[in-house]
Every structure is written in C-alpha cells, then in structure tokens.
C-alpha cells in the first residue's frame, strides 16, 4: 500500500508507461514522461537546496506541467503550495511570505508581476515557459534545465506518511488566508476511500475542473494516478463555455466528472447535456456547496444511467461524508443529505449540551476524527488550537478532532443533513469565503469607517455578495473605486458585486452592527 503520493505514480508508470496520463490545452504526457520529468525536477530542486519539508509554490494557469510540478516537489521531499493564478499579486505575495515559500515553479509573466520584496525572498524560480538562453542563471531557471538531471529514479529522501505533502490556503475570518497543512497520509486516506467506493480503473478518464488550490483536484489527480487512468484538465477556454465544455466531455470520453454544483448547473442550463451525447460518463461527483434540488432532479433525469454522489467535507479533512443519490427518493426529498462517514473516518455531531447526537432529529456541530484530519494551519497555532481540538472521548491517548463549524442534523435514514454555519463563512461557486475577510479588505481602505459583507442566497452559485459601507466624515468613494481597491486585496470571486453606502451602519441594542437588518435590506435591494 502506498504511504507517500509519489508511489501511486511510480506503480502506474511501471504498469502503463506509454499510456496517456495527463492532457491539457491540446498537449499530453504519458506515464513514463510524467515519472521521468518529475524525477528530474526533484533532482533539480534538491540540488538547488530544497530540503525535506520546504515549501515550493506552484504558480501558473494549469497545464501538464502542473502535475509534473506537484510530483516533482513531493519526490524531493518538499511540500507544494498551489497558488491561485487569478488571485491579486498582493495576496500571492502574502501567502509566499506567510508560508516561507523558498522557491516557485511559475511562468515568466506571473513572476514579473510579483513585488520586489517577495521576489528577493525566494531562492529561485523555475520558469515553465522560458527558453534556456534567456535565463540569468542564478535565480531564474528555465524548464529546459530538467534535461540535465537523472530521469530514471527519484532522489533519495526519507519520508513517512505523516510528512506534509501540500498546503492549501483558504479564506480566513480574521482577514488573511490560512494554510491548511496536509500530509501524505491525509491525502491517501481520501484517495484510498475514493478508489474503493468509485472503483476507478485504468479505463477511466477523469476530468479536472477544480483549480489545483481547491482540494477537489486531489481526487482528480491522485485517483487518476492510483488507477493508471487518464486525466483531462479543463482549462478556462472550456470551463467558461458550457457548449464547448460538453463537447469536450463527449470528445474525450470522460467517464468521471467531479466539480462544484454551479458548474453542472451551467452545463444543464446552457449546454445540451444528455446521456446520449455523453454516453461514456458513468459517474458525477459534486461537492463544495448545496445542490439545489430542482436542478439536481433535472440532472438526474437527463443522465439516467449515471451514479450521482454528494460529497461533503472542508479542506481540513477533504471529503469526510458522502451520499450516493437514491434516485427513487429524489422526487420526495426537499434536501439532499451529506450522508455518512467515509471509510477510515469518523464523524459525530455535538449538541449545545456537549453531548454526541445519537437520536434521529438531534442537531449539533459536526466533528471529524481519523487520519484524514489536518494537523492544523501553517504558522497559526492559535487558529489550530481553536479548530483542531482534543477528543475528549479518547481516554487511551491524546487524539485530535476537527470541528467543522457546520451545523448538522441526524436524519431518520441515519444520514447527516447540513443545516448551516455557526459563523459567517459562506460558499459561492463552491469557494469558501469568510465574510470577515471581505470586511477586512474594505476596512483596510483609509476612507472606510465601517463595513459589512452580506451574502444573498442564489440558485446557481450559492451566494452572491453585497457590502454596506460607512465612510469617515468628509470622505467618500464611488462603489467602483472601492471595488477596484478590493481587487488588489482579495480574489475576484470575493469582491462585493454591489456596495451600498450609509452615513452610519444600523446597530442592535447592544451596540453591535445589526447584521440581520443589513442582510434583510440587502436582500430586498437585490430583488429590485
């Protein structure tokens, strides 16, 4: 059994060397090429000083090199950090600093856009798009240099399953993104469950729709490698155009699709999605947000022979519960369950009396236990202490569990059902967004005195975002200026689509900002 991720590749490369491993933007690589290039990259990284446990950023729009980079870093004993190529450079710079990233695998234009301080903190950058002649030698290395390193084997490195494999940054409520640390064991616990439940074989063709900094991609990449299957990366030229996307799914013979519900809803509404056209598609997995029942029923109808699964779990645990859609129950359901725990994971709900919920109808906060659970957040002991807590039910030794902050109910059918959040975290297109991060961005502008971000429920994307802002006396900004400013601080999908101004924000009787009132006002305005 594999204990580090690269063993998945190694095994499949030995069995299927000439088989297509990864396809993206019209280019592809075989298992042999993936194995050899990642070996070479690992040697290069080690030679340039990347030591075990050191973080290497992966920062470019996805292509076949993305997978080479991921495997190359872990083979060197390093920890890769996928950086969102669409995020503002200030945010990327923050993550590079926060995570102590020593090297980047990136593209020339992405690197150029980073600020001087960030660039000088890096030991070196490997550019996937630059020709050997144009490098300055020392701190900029062209991809072509890989050819100078051994391809047949990976460098020696002592790793165990509890070594970190990657760090995924997610929205932070205190205003800055936080890095979820994930070990090889965390990833493999998930991958092994998926392999058993979904029976992925070497005949399968998996799509990769999610960005690589989003943990849905862990299934796409590593379950492909585990089975010796083929991965088809969906890039923006396809993802933005449902008709073209449906064509590509059909043309590539995709057998397994995994994405957030909104991507499927767009396909349903704007592409001719049907079983006849997508005859090889055998399974559709979705996660990240609630799938509105009306659209799910339509999807089920259009794709009769396909297995549909609702997968649930925060980045901190990857998928921890699952529900396989029972088609005969769909008509009568008003809500889809998040289901039951995955194998090798335990979940339980803790109610207000601090007891574990055992009876149907009981509600509480969902906790997760097992080898899928993160050890915590990079360089954030405080946040880790808050969320990764001692398991008071484990009397034999010290054990940690993760508190999800999600409120759930145990159903009559023994499935868990999602009720809502404890706090102000929302989902939009499956992206996790802390309203606090948006508010912090707004408040960081010198003219802003008070700011509240409000989520408006939306059928397709889950939530849309508006903001209400009060300025300091004597100053003001147009909404567009404030939105532009936000664009330099937070990713585009977090920017409020509309900003309403008040001289003062309404307060409750205890003097706190009346968020409930503001949420109602905003919802009303959106309906106009």
């Amino acid at each position, binding site marked *: 059994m594999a204990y580090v991720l690269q063993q998945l590749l190694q095994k499949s490369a030995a069995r299927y060397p000439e088989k297509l491993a990864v396809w993206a933007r019209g280019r592809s690589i075989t298992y042999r090429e993936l194995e050899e290039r990642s070996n070479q990259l690992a040697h290069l990284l080690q030679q340039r000083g990347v030591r075990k446990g050191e973080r290497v950023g992966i920062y470019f729009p996805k292509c076949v090199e993305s997978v080479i980079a991921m495997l190359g870093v872990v083979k060197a004993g390093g920890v890769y950090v996928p950086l969102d190529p669409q995020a503002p450079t200030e945010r990327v710079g923050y993550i590079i600093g926060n995570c102590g990233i020593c090297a980047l695998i990136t593209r020339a234009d992405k690197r150029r856009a980073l600020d001087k301080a960030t660039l000088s903190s890096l030991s070196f950058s490997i550019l996937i798009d630059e020709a050997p002649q144009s490098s300055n030698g020392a701190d900029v290395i062209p991809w072509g240099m890989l050819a100078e390193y051994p391809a047949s084997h990976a460098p020696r490195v002592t790793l165990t399953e509890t070594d970190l494999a990657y760090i995924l940054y997610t929205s932070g409520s205190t205003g800055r993104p936080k890095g979820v640390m994930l070990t090889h064991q965390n990833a493999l616990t998930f991958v092994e469950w998926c392999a058993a439940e979904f029976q992925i074989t070497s005949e399968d063709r998996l799509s990769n729709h999610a960005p690589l900094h989003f943990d849905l991609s862990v299934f796409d990449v590593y379950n492909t490698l585990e089975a010796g299957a083929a991965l088809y990366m969906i890039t*923006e030229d396809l993802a*933005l*155009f449902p008709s073209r996307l449906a064509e590509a799914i059909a043309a590539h013979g995709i057998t397994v699709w995994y994405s957030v519900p*909104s991507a499927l809803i767009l396909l349903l509404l*704007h592409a001719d999605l049907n079983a006849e056209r997508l005859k090889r598609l055998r399974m559709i997995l979705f996660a990240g947000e609630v799938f509105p029942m009306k659209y799910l029923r339509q999807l089920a109808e259009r794709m009769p022979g396909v297995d549909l699964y609702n997968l649930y779990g925060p980045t901190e645990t990857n998928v921890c519960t699952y529900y396989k859609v029972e088609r005969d129950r769909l008509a009568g359901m008003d809500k889809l369950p998040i289901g039951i725990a995955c194998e090798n994971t335990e979940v339980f709900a803790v109610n207000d009396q601090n007891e574990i919920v055992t009876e149907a109808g009981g509600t509480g906060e969902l906790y997760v236990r097992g080898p899928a659970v993160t050890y915590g957040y990079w360089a954030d002991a405080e946040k880790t202490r808050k969320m990764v807590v001692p398991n008071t039910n484990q009397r034999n030794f010290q054990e940690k569990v993760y508190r999800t902050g999600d409120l759930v109910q145990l159903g009559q059918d023994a499935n868990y059902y999602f009720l809502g959040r404890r706090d102000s975290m929302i989902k939009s297109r499956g992206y996790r967004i802390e309203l606090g991060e948006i508010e912090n961005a707004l408040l960081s502008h010198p003219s802003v005195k008070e700011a509240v971000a409000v989520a408006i429920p939306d059928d397709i994307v889950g939530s849309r975002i508006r903001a209400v802002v009060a300025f300091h006396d004597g100053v003001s900004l147009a*909404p*567009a200026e404030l939105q*532009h400013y936000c*664009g330099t601080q937070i990713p585009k999908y977090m920017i409020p689509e*509309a900003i309403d101004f008040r001289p003062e924000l309404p307060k409750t009787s205890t003097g706190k900002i009346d968020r409930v009132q503001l949420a109602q006002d905003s919802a009303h305005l959106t309906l106009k």
Partner: protein
Amino acid sequence: MSTSNCVPNPHLSVKSQIREFILESLARPKGISSFADGAPLMEMGVIDSLGVFRLVSFLEEHLGVRVDDQEINLDTLRSVDTIEALVIRKRGK
C-alpha cells in the same frame, strides 16, 4: 448604487457600447476599472462563466445580433476588439 446590467447609450459606436457594458456590468464588480481594447478579458478574470451569458444576452438584446453556440468561445469573446469584430460580422450578413 448597484452595478448590475447597465444599458449603454445606443448612440455610441458599437465598440464603445461593448466596452461600457463590460466595464460597468462585469469589470467593476470584479474590481477592475480599466482594460485595453485588445486585453484578454477571460484570462484577466473580467469575464467568468456567468459573465459569458450576460455578455451574450447583451449582444443579442442591445446590439441585435444572434450568436450561435459555436460562436461563443475564447476566440470570439477574447477582447473588446474580437467582440466588436463578431458583431460587425453578424450584422454584415
């Protein structure tokens, strides 16, 4: 003041109307306040999967051109320039 679908002045040139729609309805809500005529709007993140449809609806409802499924792709909708070219081509028929 909300930045939902704006209706540009029909007396402006086709290019100006396209630019104004994209700027007010798609770019500003994403914090982007300017872009060149040739700038790659999707790569920049100005147009996302929902934006594609709002843009196509705008072309159909306000500029009077019917766009086929095949014509909705990264090449035709890449920039203000290519969108203008698409509209002119459709109107010419």
